[in-house]
């Protein structure tokens, strides 16, 4: 938690220091109030006091109250600003950190967890800064100052009564927390559970009904629901004990002080009686302050652990150094459009086997190189090494004759038009999505966008949108079908006019006909562009200059369709599963 203080700026520290001053001032004024009260009490009791004396004391007391409010408001302003700005800063740092992560770190944390850390966890921290910090400073200071105040006014009877009450309250709160907190923490898991089962039922709606498994799902839900209800009953019933106990103790304290006070006054000397009486009034109100501040402290100990967990989760992300380091080179233009894999092996961090094993090949300018193989054979991993989503474990990958690790990553990616396996669209317009990012050239004009859409076989459905390329794309592209999303993300790569295309199984949602037309248009329009294609369908890659057959991370065949049909058993099997005899011999 304290490590988060590093993210406070000078201005925040200044404000924090100022609020400390104001908090102390406020407490000091707050604690003056009972003094004026007792002054008024004494004045009222004393024969011969004048009205003006009482009014003066009253005015002073009101002045204190006003001053206290003003200081509290100023403190509140400072803490609100500090809390909001630390949350803004953390959020921003997290966001930039995550954007700078490579796929390795993304996988390590998982996207879902990073999202929670950037949202919920930051909110938790903001809450503790907004409320907890102020309490944390205020409570102990109030307690100490209040105790100092009553030190000389009190006597052992009143003091031990108050101390006893504090201990009793702490014990009750401690016991309740000890009982309820673990259950309280379990709450989140139980809620997640309930959510999961509901989500499960919703996503599997058709399966659930097809199998007549409605009752089965409902029983699962009921069990989770019962478990959650039992747990929250226990928590809430325990918490409901707190309230009556608290008011009992508070009321008991004032009663006790007065009751004891009666005997003390009686046994005191004549001249002391009035003094003891006014002390009694003062003591009872200060003792309330003491008890209240101890209770505030207890509350903080309830809030703090949660914020602490959040802080830890945030720091984990911030302190993870991106595993990829940016180089500074750019290519000299001599080997333009050339990709070279030289004995490349790759394993995921922590894994015990290589995903890719000793891959060597070269794709020359304008060539089409295709990768085929079973799911899990390493095709996607292989092409992901080119834009440096991961770094090789052994060997090297060169683009335009330069090792990708030496590139300024931006320069490297300027050369690439990469289409991922899962089409990704962002909220905005179609234009924004096609024009996404920076490729070192001027922004793509509308007519180029139209052309890219045309090549990617998207003109027809984009044409049907009244706003055309200004048409809205909703979050995750939810308003487009899988095939449409895929075509739009292909258009995005086309509009970049790259030196190298990388298509990672990007044609899978297209029907054969669209797939074929799209690829032939692409070939026409972008002559001289090197193309790497990962595919499942033989039809997609039949006419590639070079097909690389992957099996368990090894290249078990490299050649053209014809060559591989003759020489590569794995390729033959794949082909046989998709084509008939006549087609194979065509």
């Amino acid at each position, binding site marked *: 938690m304290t490590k988060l203080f590093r993210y406070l700026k000078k201005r925040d520290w200044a404000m924090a220091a100022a609020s400390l001053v104001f908090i102390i001032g406020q407490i000091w004024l707050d604690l003056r109030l009972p003094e004026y009260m007792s002054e008024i009490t004494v004045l*009222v009791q004393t024969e011969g006091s004048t009205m003006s004396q009482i009014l003066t004391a009253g005015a002073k*007391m009101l002045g204190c*109250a006003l001053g*206290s*409010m003003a200081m509290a408001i100023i403190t*509140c302003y400072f803490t*609100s600003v500090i809390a*909001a700005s630390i*949350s803004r800063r953390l959020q921003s740092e997290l*966001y930039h950190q995550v*954007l700078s992560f490579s*796929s390795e770190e*993304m996988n390590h944390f998982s*996207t879902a967890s990073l*999202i929670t850390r950037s949202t919920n966890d930051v909110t938790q921290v903001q809450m503790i800064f*907004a409320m907890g910090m102020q309490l944390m400073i205020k409570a102990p200071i109030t307690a100490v100052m209040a105790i100092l105040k009553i030190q000389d006014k009190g006597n052992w009877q009143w003091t031990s009564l108050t101390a006893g009450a504090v201990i009793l309250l702490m014990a009750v709160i401690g016991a309740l927390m000890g009982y309820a907190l673990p259950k309280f923490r379990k709450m989140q898991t139980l809620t997640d559970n309930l959510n*999961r089962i509901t*989500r*499960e*039922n*919703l*996503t599997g*709606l*058709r*399966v659930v*009904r*097809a199998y007549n*498994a*409605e009752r089965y*799902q409902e029983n699962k839900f*009921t069990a989770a*629901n019962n478990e959650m*209800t039992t747990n929250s*009953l226990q928590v809430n019933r325990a918490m*409901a*004990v707190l309230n*009556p106990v608290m008011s*009992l103790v508070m009321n008991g304290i*004032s009663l006790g002080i*007065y*009751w004891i006070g009666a005997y003390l006054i*009686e046994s005191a000397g004549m001249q002391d*009686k009035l003094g003891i*009486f006014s002390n009694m009034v003062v003591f009872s109100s200060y003792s309330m302050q003491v008890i209240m501040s101890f209770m505030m402290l207890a509350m903080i100990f309830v809030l703090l652990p949660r914020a602490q967990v959040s802080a830890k989760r945030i720091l984990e992300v911030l302190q993870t150094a991106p595993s990829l380091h940016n180089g500074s080179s750019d290519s000299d233009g001599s080997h333009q459009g050339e990709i070279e894999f030289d004995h490349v092996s790759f394993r995921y961090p922590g894994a015990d086997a290589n995903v890719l094993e000793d891959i060597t090949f070269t794709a020359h300018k304008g060539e089409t190189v295709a990768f085929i193989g079973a*799911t899990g054979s390493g095709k996607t991993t292989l092409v992901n090494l080119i834009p440096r*989503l991961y770094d090789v474990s052994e060997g090297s990958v060169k683009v335009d004759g330069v090792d990708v690790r030496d590139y300024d990553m931006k320069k490297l*990616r300027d050369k690439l038009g990469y289409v991922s396996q899962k089409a*990704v669209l*962002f*909220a905005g317009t179609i234009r924004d999505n096609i024009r996404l*990012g*920076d*490729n070192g050239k001027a922004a793509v004009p509308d007519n180029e966008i139209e052309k890219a859409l045309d090549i990617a076989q998207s003109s027809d459905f984009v044409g049907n949108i009244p706003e055309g390329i200004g048409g809205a794309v909703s979050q995750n592209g939810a308003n487009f079908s899988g095939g449409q999303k895929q075509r739009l993300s292909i258009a*995005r790569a086309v509009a970049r006019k790259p030196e190298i295309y990388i298509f990672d199984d990007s044609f899978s949602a297209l029907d054969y006909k669209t797939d*074929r037309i799209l690829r032939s248009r692409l070939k026409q329009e972008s002559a001289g562009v090197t193309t790497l294609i990962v595919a*499942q369908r033989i*039809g997609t890659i039949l006419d590639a200059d070079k097909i690389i057959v992957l099996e368990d991370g090894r290249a078990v065949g490299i050649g053209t369709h014809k060559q591989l049909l003759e020489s590569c058993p794995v390729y033959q*099997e794949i082909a046989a599963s998709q*084509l*008939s005899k006549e087609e194979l011999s065509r």
Partner: protein
Amino acid sequence: MRPMNHHASLPKGKFSPEGLKKLYAFCKKYIPAVIIALVCAVGGTVFTILGPDKLSDLTDLITQGLMTGIDFDGVTRVAVTLTVMYGCSALLTFTQGQLMTVTTQRISQGLREAISKKINRLPIDYYNKTTFGDILSRVTNDVDTISQAIQNSIITLVSSVVLLLGCLLMMFKTNWVMTVSAIVASLIGFVLMVLIMGRSQRYFIARQQGLGDMNGHIEEAYAGHTVIRVSNAEKEFSEKFEALNEKLYQASWKSQFLSGLMMPIMGFIGNLGYVTVCVIGALLTMNGNITFGVIVAFMVYVRLFTTPLSQIAQAMTNIQSAAAASGRVFDFLEAEEMEDESNKTKRLTNPTGQVSFQHVKFGYTPDRVIIHDFSQEVHPGEKVAIVGPTGAGKTTLVNLLMRFYEIDGGSISMDGINLKDLTRENVHSLFGMVLQDTWLFEGTIRDNIVYGKQGVTDEDLDRVCKAVGLYHYVHTLPNGYDTVLDGGISLSEGQKQLMTIARAMIENAPMLILDEATSSVDTRTELLIQQAMDRLTEGRTSFVIAHRLSTIKNADIILVLKDGDIIESGNHQTLLEKGGFYAELYNAQFAHS
């Protein structure tokens, strides 16, 4: 059967007495408990009000005895009375708290249960018009809001009103001059508070909105991380993010600040009342109109008097949002359900597998007909393949066959019985189904494959898993069939698909529907699955939708669908020879560009 778009019609925070009325009806059986709790709360409050009066008696006894000697019998009497009162008050508050907690939890449990049951009684159509997130938020957030309101607000509201009235009564009874001055002092503060609350509301909404926008952006950016990086779009996204972040920051500190003002202002109101009471009390005492005990009593009354005002305001806000939440919950609970089928007596248990579609007409919305006029005879044991471009209505046909949707015209019948005359449950039991999205849930492999079917033995599981080629894999897992599928076990898409096929095999229904069942596996794995499925479809009428035409070459009949109508039908050979749309589709996979 057209549930409306509820959530759009009821924005959060809008007051709906309708929602509260329905909630009341739902909670009827808990009303006695709530009433007892209320009585307890009122009782506890009464003691709270009487307390200061007694305390002032005690003070008076002491002051009167300052010079002359204290009347200790009186002191003891008053102190004991007070002890008993405080004790009773605590006991009543305790009883009330326990009662309300149990009531609230039971009500939310009931609401959640009702929502869960409702999910399976709504037509599938309903879910096209609402998001899962929306329904999930009803189960959790809305029910939570309701339970918070019931747990706290009702009691707070009633006891605050009682406290307020009681305080007023006691204060007037004690001294009206001081009462009026205390009220005036408190009212000034209260008006101030209402003004601030009204203003802060706007920033709270802005903050919620800002948080929502920001979370949406973060979600999108993190999910599309790779694309952003590879497209060098980091700068673009950062700029967008910083703009959102700045907006959130502004709303955030303002709302925090304004809501933080409440406490100090409340404190000041208290002190203001205090001073007023003291000064005026002192004046009156000096004139001999009142005793000092009255001042002590009033000091407490002023505190008691200012708290309920803000609590009532708070409770009202809570109840308002609970009303909105229960509006949303009951909109869902009261959405039109699927037709009641308890009066249907016809049952089809051993179908031959003959299916007849006659002039079937259907559209998801009345203005967009998907299937215009579909007629087809399917003979027992036939493998029927349905192909065609995306949006041609292939999956729609399956939806109609399973009666996930009701047809708008024509009929579908099996062995001469119209599907409409059978219960949906009966229809579902006739089909095994494997879908494109491999739906597995968190649970053991056994649970996933057996899925609710009774009397499945391990031998059955072994047999089925051998058939689909999962046997070896399952037995390499530490707990075999009892391995729990969660984040720890990573299944490939292909294995998941095999799992769902195994599930269909265990169900062993007389007919089969395979909707793109092998689309997410590579072709060699597909071959394996294909063999498993051929075994599965043997002798059963089956409907197969496939993207990869290689999967359906051996179908008895291939229906080529385009825009909801059959444009060609026949087997693979005849369709190829015909040289039509199918041939074009088929050859497209081999054409050299």
